[in-house]
């Protein structure tokens, strides 16, 4: 039942990303599909997380003709996810292991974790995507994604955690 629910969540988030968020603002990219890898149970092994990041990023690449950039940066994020969790979340939460929802994680830590994760993802993504040109536009996109992304993921987890 948990697996079925998670698959549904993945499909929902991917649809939301590909069919709505990719089309809503030209030039601004809110990568809410990162919630698929960021909210996952802490006890998932790293290799599984790497594969999940690769697949999810690859799907978004195919849907948005991203040519592998989403996959590359998302794999990178999944690789550093565990150290990031240990750095930002309370030890007790890490030891208990489970999905990262605000029911278990204090709000402040939750947003710190998400903001750092989005920043880690956004910086290489937007720099590589722009081809090292127009630094101001890149900076704006990084800031917007880092600020708005965690809020949307927060709302999403409120919606799906039950």
């Amino acid at each position: 039942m948990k697996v079925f629910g998670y698959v549904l969540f993945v499909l929902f988030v991917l649809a939301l990303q590909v069919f709505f968020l990719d089309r809503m603002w030209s030039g601004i990219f809110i990568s809410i599909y990162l919630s698929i890898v960021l909210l996952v149970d802490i006890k998932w092994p790293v290799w599984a997380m790497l594969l999940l990041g690769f697949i999810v990023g690859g799907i978004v690449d195919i849907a948005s003709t991203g040519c592998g950039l989403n996959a590359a940066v998302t794999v990178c994020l999944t690789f550093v996810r565990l150290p990031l969790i240990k750095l930002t979340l309370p030890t007790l939460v890490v030891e208990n292991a489970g999905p990262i929802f605000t029911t278990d994680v204090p709000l402040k830590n939750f947003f710190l974790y998400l903001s750092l994760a989005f920043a880690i993802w956004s910086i290489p993504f937007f720099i590589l995507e722009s081809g090292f040109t127009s630094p101001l536009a890149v900076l704006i996109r990084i800031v917007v994604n880092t600020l708005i992304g965690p809020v949307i993921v927060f709302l999403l987890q409120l919606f799906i955690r039950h």
Partner: protein
Amino acid sequence: MPEDFFDKMKELLLFLKKISVVVLFLVLEGISFYFFFTKDTYMLSKYVLISKEITVPFDRFVATFSSYVSLVEKNSALADCNARLISENMELKRLLADSVKAESKLDLPVVCAAKVLKNEYRYENNFITIDRGELDGVSCGMSVIDENGVVGFVSNTSSSFSVVVSVFNKDGFLTSAKLAGTSNTGSLFWDGKTTGILQLSEMPSHIDINVGDTVLTTSYSNIFPENIPVGRIKDFKISEGTFYSAEVETFTDVHKLNYVYVLEVKNKYERDSLESAAKQEGGILK
């Protein structure tokens, strides 16, 4: 096998296990960055193709939905556009009327163009109200036509409006008419039955009459100028032995009357006076 070899193999396996995650990470990154940095056109076209396969049905749905939602807005814009065109058309018709007045090919003495304000066609005696009156030069007895043919004649006027007796007025309308290309005339009137069909009676039976022949006004009338189109013969029969009785389908569609032109008959007053004086005197030379 020496025991030392197994120990080394065990260590190697442990090491590989330890770095397997890093290896997997590097492999996945390698694949992703390969696609990103090579960006060869063949691969890109494949990407686009797959991407379109996924997103096109959704895009089509969104486009259909958006166009449906924006129908109200488009409808409103079309209505505005229509109103503007109607206004322009009115102005052009007025200009055309002035132009016709100035140099008409038919030499029609157009007094003015007028908009139809009220148009009856359901009764036995129908009238039309137009937005031009005495101030515009309209007076009783003037004929009224549209671009297709005869509409009626002015019966009452005020300073700004006039009432027109429609050709579909059973008791009020009677004039003479002829077939195009002939000089034989008959009486044209409406029997009060079918809107759009006038009756042409007293046409001599020796003339050649066919369905589709054009009916025109004659010079006998002191209301309508000669040769104004009335309609086409729809049906005919011989009545009273020596006369044709025919149904005339009018060119003017009374249901779609919007603008009409008021015509002046030259020297009407002089002709009316002369004819009435002759009648009073009974035609006896004194």
